[in-house]
């Protein structure tokens, strides 16, 4: 019995370490220089190569473009999903199941397949190589996650609080800003986080619909992976992960701050 418990603990522990190990190895890969076979560790650790890569204008451009597209995608996704999730979460109406299925489709239909169909249409409508085109295609793939999260939140929160506020004489705008929004804010943050991450990691969609005009971090990264330049790729990967994490933490702090100052509540 005790032995089983120890084995079980060891398996969980190993799995957790295996999940973190790649991030550590990515750091070693980024910092190390001169690392021929069969050395297990780089012979030289150097920072100045990284500094050179980090200061390249292409990386700056890619980070700014990625952030801008991801932010716009997040906003568009929330604008579309919020009312729809509310409808599906609170009301029973004909077509609710169809709406849920429709909002699930982008998870199931592969991005490459979907994008090829849309690419042709985008060329004809002039959406190709535009910021709007890229944001629209990213939004398609962010919708399922944001929808699921907010749907769940609305199902939990219900409509009673809104009804009470309306009964006490609050107008629709007041109900929304003072009751609905604070109640679903934690879910909104999670939904925004997911939308942001999904937009930030898009490759083939940006590549095709962006028509080469938008250099995002994944687009910068892929040629280096193809060329086997693992050192450069690892530095860009770290920038990739860190930028996404930083932006998310910042977003959460800002929203929480707004939340606390406006409503004096602890989410």
């Amino acid at each position, binding site marked *: 019995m005790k032995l089983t418990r120890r084995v079980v603990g060891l398996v969980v522990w190993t799995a957790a370490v295996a999940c973190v190990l790649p991030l550590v190895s990515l750091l070693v890969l980024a910092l190390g220089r001169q690392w021929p076979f069969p050395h297990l560790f780089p012979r030289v650790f150097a920072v100045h190569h990284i500094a050179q890569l980090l200061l390249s204008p292409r990386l700056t451009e890619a980070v700014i473009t990625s952030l801008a597209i991801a932010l716009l995608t997040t906003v568009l996704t929330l604008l579309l999903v919020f009312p729809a999730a509310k409808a599906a979460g609170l009301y029973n109406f004909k077509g609710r199941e169809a709406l849920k299925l429709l909002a699930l489709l982008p998870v199931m239909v592969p991005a490459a397949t979907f994008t090829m169909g*849309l690419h042709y249409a985008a060329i004809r409508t002039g959406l190709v190589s535009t910021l709007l085109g890229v944001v629209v295609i990213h939004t398609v793939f962010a919708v399922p996650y944001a929808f699921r999260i907010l749907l769940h939140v609305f199902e939990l929160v219900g409509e009673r609080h809104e009804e009470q506020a309306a009964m006490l004489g609050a107008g629709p705008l007041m109900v929304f800003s003072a009751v609905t929004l604070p109640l679903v804010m934690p879910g909104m943050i999670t939904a925004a986080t997911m939308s942001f991450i999904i937009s930030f990691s898009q*490759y083939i969609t940006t590549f095709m619909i962006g028509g080469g005009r938008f250099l995002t971090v994944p687009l910068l990264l892929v040629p280096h992976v193809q060329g086997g330049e693992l050192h450069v790729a690892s530095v860009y990967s770290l920038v990739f992960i860190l930028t996404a994490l930083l932006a998310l933490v910042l977003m959460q702090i800002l929203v929480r701050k707004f939340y606390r100052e406006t409503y004096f509540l602890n989410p």
Partner: protein
Amino acid sequence: MHTPSKPYLLAAPLAIFLALTFGVSLSIGVSGLTPEHFYAVFANRDFTVSLVATLSVAAIATLISNVGGAVLAFFMLKVATGRAWVRHSLQLPIIMPHLVVTIIVFHFFAQTGIIARLAWWAGLIEHPNQFPLLVFDRLAIGIILVYLYKQIPFVAMVCFDSLKSISHRFGEAGENLGATPWQVAMWIYLPLLRPTLLATILITFAFAFGAFEVPFLLGTPAWRTLPVEAYVLYTNIDPGARERAMTINVTIAAISLGLALIYSKTERLIAHYRADGEGRI
């Protein structure tokens, strides 16, 4: 109370947005395709190889990640409830982009990678060439490894949450009646977990089936997965290549839509099995 039209007004923007993008994508994709295009593509040997290979890779990745993830979830429940660092480590692969995971798999499993170096130190190989080809290989081991790193923690987290939401009274009742921990897991929790597992199986399969970047970067030159094959054809200037690409895409979309339909059916099953406050199902 609300007016009958309210939910429709609320849902309209998203419904129109999705219907429009999907409708346009599908109609453009299908336009100009005739049954002859499908016969020609299905009769092509490259397509058959691609289809079988893509389905096999997805099936193997799905099988390993769901069995591994479910076992890990059970184990976590046994020892690590409340251990924040385990849960945080398991969340890392979920937010790690596939592209980055691809780099890491290459770094570890290439013939001059970390594992090959460890093999050299252990005296198993003398030269990188003697290390088995694990990336760009015909068996797609590198591709599957990327999926496993992403999906085992995903399945484990989803199953872990689901197991926690299932009332512990079932397990206690079983134990009181003399069931061993193994019997409790196999005969009580596994059946209750089945709808959740069905959902994760569908999601992991759909992803592995339709992924582009991973097989594009780590695939063998010997064969291509269907999405990569479609993309290569799409960017080919040969006459008829675009139609062939679109025929493959329609086939992929049909398989994906089938999966989506099954998924939406299982959703209701999950809701049915979720324990309420009283511990009933």
